[in-house]
Structures are given as structure tokens and as C-alpha cells.
């Protein structure tokens, strides 16, 4: 999914992400490219939405920490690592790819949003 001419884009056009593991918990930091992107993500990229998106992969709670000064939303996902690095049967047992898993989530752009702010090759 990439940006098209409609008012729908994905998280990937507005932010970048990195995941890290501690035991069976994974954090996914979503870092907005700018303030306008952060405001949109703050409104639309809720913990509930992230948990639903990762259904079957993240089995526990998702808590969202907001850091407006840095334009970052940090999602802490419980039971996200298949039991933890050494127990997990997953090919990506460190959960490194969870960060890219959050990027396809669709975000609605408001009327008049400056599309030049969007990252990526565009339509």
C-alpha cells in the first residue's frame, strides 16, 4: 500500500518505526516526520487499533505512550514475542519486523492536508 490520490494514506507516509524486545514484550516506536503527522497519528493510531491490527501476533495488552515534544508514539505490546526470544517458534524471534508491521495501517487525511508532507515515492 502506498499513498494514492484519495485522502487515505498509510502510517508509512507519515512516520517511521523501530521495534525492540524485552522478554515476551515488544515496543514499537512510531516516529512522525513532522508535527502535522504526529497530530494525525495521535488521533487515529490508537492502542486499540494497533492491538486489532496485530491480532494473532500480539496476544496481550497494548499500551500507548505519547511524547509530543519528540513527535513519538510508543506502543508497548505484551505477549508479542511468541513467549520470548529463546522460546519462540517464530522465524523472527526477536520481533524485529513488528516495526514494519505497523506501517500499512491506513490513516485518513483531513481536507486540505499538505500532501508535500508525505514521505515516499507518491502516487
Amino acid at each position, binding site marked *: 500500500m502506498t499513498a494514492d490520490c484519495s485522502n487515505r494514506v498509510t502510517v508509512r507516509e507519515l512516520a517511521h518505526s523501530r521495534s525492540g524486545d524485552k522478554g515476551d514484550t515488544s515496543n514499537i516506536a512510531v*516516529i512522525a516526520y513532522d508535527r502535522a503527522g504526529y497530530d494525525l497519528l495521535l488521533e487515529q493510531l490508537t492502542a486499540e487499533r494497533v492491538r486489532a491490527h496485530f491480532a494473532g501476533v500480539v496476544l496481550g495488552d497494548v499500551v500507548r505512550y505519547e511524547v509530543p515534544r519528540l513527535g513519538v508514539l510508543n506502543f508497548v505490546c505484551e505477549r508479542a514475542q511468541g513467549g520470548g526470544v529463546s522460546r519462540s517458534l517464530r522465524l523472527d524471534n526477536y520481533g524485529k519486523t513488528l516495526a514494519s508491521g505497523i506501517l500499512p495501517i491506513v490513516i485518513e487525511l483531513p481536507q486540505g492536508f499538505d500532501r508535500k508532507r508525505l514521505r515516499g515515492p507518491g502516487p
Partner: protein
Amino acid sequence: MIKIGTGSGWWGDRVSPAAELAEKGDLDYLCFETMAEATVSTAQVRKRRDPDFGGFDTYLDDRMAAVLPHCIRRGTKIVSNQGWVNPLGAARAIRAHLDRLGAHHWKVAAVTGSIVTESIADLAGPIMEDGRPFADIDGEIVSAEAYLGAAGIVEALAAGAHIVVTGRVADPALFLAPMIHEFGWAADDWARLGAGAGIGHLMECGAQLTGGYFVDPGYKDVPEPWNLGFPIAEVEADGVAVFGKLPGTGGVIDRHTVLEQMFYEVHDPARYITPDVVVDFTQADIESIGLNRIRVSGITGRPRTETFKVSIGAQEGFIGEDLFVYAGPGALDKARLAEKILRERFAIVELDAQDLRFDFIGVNAVHGPMSPTPAAEPYEVAVRVTARCRSRAEALKIGREVDGMAVSGIGSTGKRVPFAERVREVIGIWSTLIDRHAVAPTVQFVEAAS
């Protein structure tokens, strides 16, 4: 101001960028981070079986041979957690390098004291992951180690060590310790300790600050990602740092690489708990002051907790794993039928598994049920089958049944023979908290041979 470089961000990290930093970085300190969560438990198990295993970083000789001549010439001190379960052995190995290089005046210290395997049953609080009492952990306890803070390293530096090699300490402490030593920060100067530990956190994964683990083609591009330079921090006594890398190296350090690393493995960014201080990243300022030069200020801290985290390794069983491939027309249908055949076979041989998983690599292996249905039939599919079992004998059944797929399976089944490492041991990791006063680091110097 002191200049600190990262020599490795994990055990498997590249060696040549460390050598380049040592040679050209004009560093006061070069710090090596080589331990993951399971390093100590895995090392303890290996030590039992392999008497030749030293119990420390298996790349210690490569790393020291590459950096020591430069460090000795410049007077760059080294702080490293390459000691794993045998810091004294690592210190002796480093001593041998120094003596060979004629650096008899260089002092090497080992910091021990993190291993609490013998006493953990008495010290442990509840298991952090699930709240159970320690006694309820299944399987033999093979290791328990406390995440110590900077104190032991600071003590060694104060006693004149040029090289300090530790077992388990919190990763940021490797970098914080030189700051405490050089700047004389007080043990309760939480703002500066928080800034220093935060700087350590940014540095501890090496190239993850300078464009590694970062590229997303077309979205986040990085120059020469085959030639990433490791990071350098120029730290001021007030806890403000400028991060950079050597000219001529690939990679990038900018606001976005710094932010990704700042939040790496962090839960509450206002309360990142380390043994020395609780770090608050939320008020940080990140400012570009030139090409690949980023100034970070405003990281602060709050009083440390009264506990140390302890990581406990328990022998839980075995994972069996194997892999085979299909390509061409019908590849996905063949993969699905192969799964059905193997599930039937596992029932026939009465496989006793705690968990059994099939992945179709190229289709759904990484994100499982999140993966969209392929729009077109994939040209090739690899079938990966894994199971976690109590006994080695059960885990071995995975590979044995996949063996049967070679001549008794589906047409055009591709199979690597031999496929080594089809069974591996599971050392489950649990965490608990102990009273921080129950353990203390011990500093031992290893004298030159002559």
C-alpha cells in the same frame, strides 16, 4: 569534554568499524557491548559441555587484535562487557594481548559479582513476567545474573585501569561509568546521571544510531549502508552530548536515527529504569549542528530504584526445526498438502509438543495471521516446521518426519541434506528483582606477566 566511541553493539557486530574508530576517532574511551538477554544462560550451558569454551566473548581476540595497537598509541581506554560468565578469563586474555604488544604498563581489571545463581532462590522476588513465586519456575535453573550498574567500572577506572572488562552490567552503564569517573558526578546527581545513562542508551547498539537497522528504501535512505561508521559521543560535563561518526564512513546520524534508537527497547519513556538512575527521555532536545552532527540535551533522570533486575535462565526443553521447498506451478498447494501430511505423521508418531508451528516462507512466515492473502500464486514457497518439546527425543521427530518427505512426500520436494542444527535447547528467560544491597561488584586486576 570526553569522546566515547562504540566498538560493538552486539556480539556478532562487525570488527573493522571499531578498528577504524580506534585508529582515527581520537577517542578517550572505546566501549564494547556484546551481551544479549540469553548470553549468560547460553554460556553457562555451553561451558558445561565444552571445556575449551572460555566463557567470554568468542570474538574477544579478533576485537582486541584490531583495536589495541591504536588504543595503546592514543591512550584510549576500553570498557567492555565481553567478560560474560568469566570476566577474569577475559581480562587474562586481554592481558596476553597487551604483553605481546609490549604494553606492560597498561592495567586490566575484571569486574565480577553479577552472577547470583547460588543465592537467587533466597533473594528472588516474584517473577516479573507473570507474578508467580520463583519456586514455581519449571526446569533446572542454569543461571541467574544481576544487571549491575556503573559502580564496579568506576572503581576500576579510579584505581588506574586502562581496560575494564565486566560480566553483566546494564548496557548504558558501560558508557555512563567513564562519564562518572571523568566528571566526578555525584551518586545522587540524578539529572546528570540520567543524561549520561541516556547517552549510553543511544550509544549501546552501535550503528543503530548511525543508520543501521534503519533503511526503508524510498522512504528513509542511507548513504553507503555497506560501510556504516560506528557512533562517537562528545560528552560535556553537564550531560549534553554531540553525536557523530568518522568522516568518510557510510550511514547517517540525524534526528530520525537518534529518535529510533532513543526508543529502542524502551517502555515508559519517562521512566527508563537502569541500575544507576531512572532516565527520562521525554524532555529531550535534538538539534542538528552540522552534517552528521547531532546535539542532544535535556535528557534527565530521577532517583534509582532500590532493586537490581535479575535475569534467570531455566532449562525448559528443546526446539526441533526443519525446512523444505517447493517452486513452480502449484507450489502453494503443495506446501498446504505437505502441512497436512506432516500433521498426520506427527499424530502417527505421537509427537508430544507444547507448541507446533508451520510457516510458508514467502507467504505468511513472519507476520502469520496478519499477512494478506497473496494476490497471485507465489512462484516458490519454503515450508518451515518447528515444535517446542520437553525432551530432545520428541524434538528430533520434527526433522525425522521431514526426512520422510524426501522420497515419501510430494512431487518435486526440495530438501537440504544435511540440515544441521535441527534441534536446539530452550533456555527460558525469567526476570525478578532483588535488593540492590544483596550484591556488589568485585574489581580484580590482572598483572603483566613479567
